[in-house]
């Protein structure tokens, strides 16, 4: 039984079923990150997929942009409680990037310029659920929001959508990333409110 906070009324109930538990709507696009924003020159940018056997696949910026893209419109949910509905991105599906990668791995460790990491089961990157995004609402993604390219995995809390993405290591075992070793949930499903470890 929840404690009633005397005199608290709250705002009009919002979101129409699109808001996971404990989240509220924002029209802003807040920023959450742990350190300075890395500035990544697209001339030097590359994206790498490394398999559990050590085989590496690389894409330059020009090669990424030459791949078929999608323009998903998705709701995003930050563990700090804001949600933003109907955001539109342009990016390359991980299905495309992983198409010719031979792997039997079950897990992925995503790493970024600047040293950030986050982990997730490989299957959460497949079947149209994840993109390497390079445009947001028709514009280039600004560095503060993870540009030039970020991972977009909207069905998980947004810290899994690593900014400044640089590569993915495919692993046989789960390897916790940055926030996952700092007390946050290993999987992070907003609809099950998996914010912190063991939620």
């Amino acid at each position, binding site marked *: 039984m929840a404690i009633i*906070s005397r*005199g608290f009324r*709250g705002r009009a109930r919002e979101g129409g079923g699109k808001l996971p538990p404990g989240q509220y709507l924002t029209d802003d696009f807040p*920023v*959450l990150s*742990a350190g300075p924003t890395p500035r990544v020159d697209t001339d030097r940018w590359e994206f790498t997929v490394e398999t559990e056997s050590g085989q590496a696949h690389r894409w330059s910026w020009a090669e990424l942009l030459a791949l078929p893209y999608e323009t998903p419109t998705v709701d995003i949910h930050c563990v700090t409680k804001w949600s933003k509905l109907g955001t539109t991105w342009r990016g390359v599906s991980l299905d495309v990037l992983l198409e010719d990668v031979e792997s039997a791995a079950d897990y992925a460790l995503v790493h970024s310029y600047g040293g950030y990491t986050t982990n997730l089961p490989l299957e959460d990157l497949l079947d149209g659920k994840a993109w390497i995004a390079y445009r947001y609402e028709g514009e280039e993604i600004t560095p503060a929001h993870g540009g030039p390219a970020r991972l977009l995995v909207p069905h998980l809390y947004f810290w899994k959508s690593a900014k400044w993405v640089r590569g993915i290591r495919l692993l046989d075992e789960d390897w916790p990333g940055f926030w996952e070793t*700092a*007390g946050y949930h290993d999987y992070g499903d907003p609809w099950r409110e998996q914010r912190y*470890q*063991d939620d």
Partner: protein
Amino acid sequence: MRRLAWRVAELTAIREETPTARTLVLRVPGWPGHLAGQHVDVRLTAEDGYSTQRSYSLAGPSDGEHVELTVQRVPGGEVSPYLTEVMEVGDQVELRGPVGGWFVWEPAAKTPVLLVAGGAGVVPLMAMIRARRTAGSRAPFRLVYSLRDPGQAYYADELRHPDPGLDVTRVYTRTAPDGFARRPGRLTAADLAGSGRPPEYEPDCYVCGPTGFVEKAAELLVSLGHEPGRIRTERFGPTGG
């Protein structure tokens, strides 16, 4: 690690910091303790069962079953007007935490520390300053506190006479007090380079404030030669990010 449980928190005291911000002292039976820099989730439930959550930084170090939050009223906000205007001593909210294992200061650390606060972002940094005092730490601390005008200062009395080994630099962006040497204006590299703690000292840097401020301050620190890996940031704002 156990799941973070929701606990009942009762308001036991209020301190007004500015006309739009107050510190809430809450008693939380069973509170497990925390590190300076960590935050908590607060859950409010209305009589009709509607509930909502927000995150707030802890303003002081671990003190038995008492925790302190400093809350800035956000015009038009859903939760902060309740916490800063409606809530009275004896009222209850739910709280869980502590949360966050990155933007923290360990009392045993001896490394010099550079704290950079923008407005309400001073809250978790004040927790570090207080934790240093509580622990009797001699780690050199420097706080650079950027604020719009003197009326916006949190913890004004406490920071007027800083602890030994704590250097406080104020940066007023809009209006400075009479006779204040520095002209009002945004934070610059010179403010951060200021009195000592150059990058060669390799201080641990903690930056907290609104997103624009944090972006700028972190960029200035990097340009001054601070190692990006030693700069920890926390964004603070009406939207909780």
